[in-house]
């Protein structure tokens, strides 16, 4: 099986710090990690390779430091990695991202399966997978929570729904987007990591010309959507701390609720407010 795994480097939002004054996200000092769901895609790919043979190739688009994500992916068992890095790629929406990745997949050539995360934790759109599948004219299954069977021509997977799942049989080649319940990703193997850092490491960096795209079709210029403004949501929270002994704190709380719209939201609160 020839498997391509899409890996996006994202800021680690688990250790996110907020500006104590404005409540804004402090982006400085955030380390880059492999998008969590992409780890699960990688694990699945390496597992399939181990049982069926074949090769796992990682494809990532991002700034030059995204090479770290490629290195780690090789540490986890990928055979080679391609990083698409060019100033022209910056500012891409999902349309332009899927196009750029699509061109690179065409350059790679033959594949049986593409695995990727359902959603990246920064952009949060879950659009790149299905858009790439359409570009390549192959079927897709999204929200894959389990891969039951796999052979050269066909796979059976469980697709998560809001209230359960469906079992889907899908012809190959196909693209699957996976979620975290799929498996437990392995840690990178130290020896492989060290190999991946050497000059002979199987990591290639391609720019726009390498994959045969003109700069007006990629990045910000090639995008169909534009972010016209970004802002931090204004919570307008009252942020009132009620202290004192618990009896007092709780009765203060109920008093506050009774003086707000919250009392109308809930009969029990309304009743208790009349009580006190």
């Amino acid at each position, binding site marked *: 099986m020839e498997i391509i795994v899409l890996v996006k480097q994202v800021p680690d939002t688990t250790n996110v710090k907020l500006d104590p004054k404005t409540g804004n*996200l402090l982006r400085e000092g955030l380390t880059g990690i492999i998008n969590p769901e992409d780890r699960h895609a990688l694990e699945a790919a390496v597992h399939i390779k181990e049982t069926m043979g074949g090769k796992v190739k990682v494809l990532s688009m991002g700034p030059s430091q995204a090479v770290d994500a490629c290195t780690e992916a090789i540490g986890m068992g990928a055979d080679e990695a391609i990083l698409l890095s060019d100033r022209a790629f910056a500012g891409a929406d999902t349309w332009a991202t899927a196009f750029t990745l699509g061109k690179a997949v065409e350059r790679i050539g033959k594949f049986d399966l593409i695995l990727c995360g359902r959603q990246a934790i920064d952009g949060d759109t879950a659009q790149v997978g*299905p858009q790439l599948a359409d570009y390549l004219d192959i079927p897709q299954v999204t929200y894959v929570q389990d891969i039951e069977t796999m052979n050269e021509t066909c796979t059976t997977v469980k697709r998560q729904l809001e209230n359960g799942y469906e*079992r889907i049989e899908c012809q190959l080649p196909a693209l699957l987007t996976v979620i975290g319940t799929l498996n437990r990703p392995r840690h990178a193997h130290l020896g492989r990591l060290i190999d991946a850092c050497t000059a002979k490491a199987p990591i290639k960096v391609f720019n726009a010309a390498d994959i045969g795209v003109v700069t007006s079709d990629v990045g910000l210029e090639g995008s169909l959507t534009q972010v*016209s403004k970004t802002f931090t949501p204004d919570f307008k929270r009252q942020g009132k701390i009620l202290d004192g002994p618990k009896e007092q704190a709780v009765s203060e*709380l109920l008093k506050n609720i009774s003086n707000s719209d919250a009392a109308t939201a809930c009969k029990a609160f309304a*009743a208790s407010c009349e009580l006190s």
Partner: protein
Amino acid sequence: AVPKEIPDFSDHEGVWVYAEQRDGVLAKVTLELLGIAQELGQERRQKVSAVLIGDRLENLTHDLIRHGADQVFLAEDPCLQPYRTLAHVKIMEDLINEHKPEILLIGATHIGRDLAPRLSRRVGVGLTADCTALSIDPEEKILLQTRPAFGGNVMATIANRYSRPQMATVRPGVMEARTDEAKAGTIIHCEVQLDEADIKTKVLEMFEEKRKHAPITDSKVIVAGGRGVNGEAGFQMLRTLADLLDGEVAGTRVVAEQGFVPADCQVGQTGKTVRPEIYIACGISGAIQHRAGMMNSRFIIAINKDPDAPIFKVADWGIIGDLHDVVPELVRQLTPAS
């Protein structure tokens, strides 16, 4: 760089909603989308249309009209039920190319987020994900699409100037459905010509998990617990409080993984987005991924023994203390004296 020239889209007209249904039951978000579609339609002086795809669904058309559709495109065929990506994409693609709508809204559900991106690529348009607000720009007359990103820490307003329809998926539970019993509408039957060989997937089985509780996304009051609740006895206590308030119990990823609340009661970036009237966070630190799912609640109450817990930053009212003291006291004061 020179700004790109904006093509002439004057031949595009109409606000469309993809009418998601499962097993012949309309998704709630479909009705919500028709609510906002009416507003946008009024502003643009354009008709609202619903596209209903499946098999034997004529009985649903009335409900779509009642909720705001001026016309319903109905595509029926056994191969369209249940939903399969390539089948529904093909029907939508043909309809869009023939009728050229200006706006297309799709629910950000597991089906909508499967269909919309694929369709957007197919018809060559941009797509905005997971919107929580939509409006028409008064000057440019384009759709302004506002969405949370970065786990809800950043809001972005996105425009789609260079392609039509302007396409967005919209979060369930955000827009308001409206009904008008007297409303009339027309039904347009669509011809379906699909080759099973082109669909490439088969649904072998659907499995519905039995639900013992109401969906937390529908609940007006949520009592949520985190690691600080510390075990089953603690959750029993939260349930007592929730019952008193006619609410549901939910939790952080930590407690969902420990099994104290079911997976579909996890609130946050990788769980549910909720917006109840009252959200009571007990023993929850307020990690960014958790806040992403509850920040838009109307009122937030936090109970935590750590005064520096980030949850207090998004709370209207906070009590610093041990929840094992505070929650029973809250229950006591809320229980009417008999």
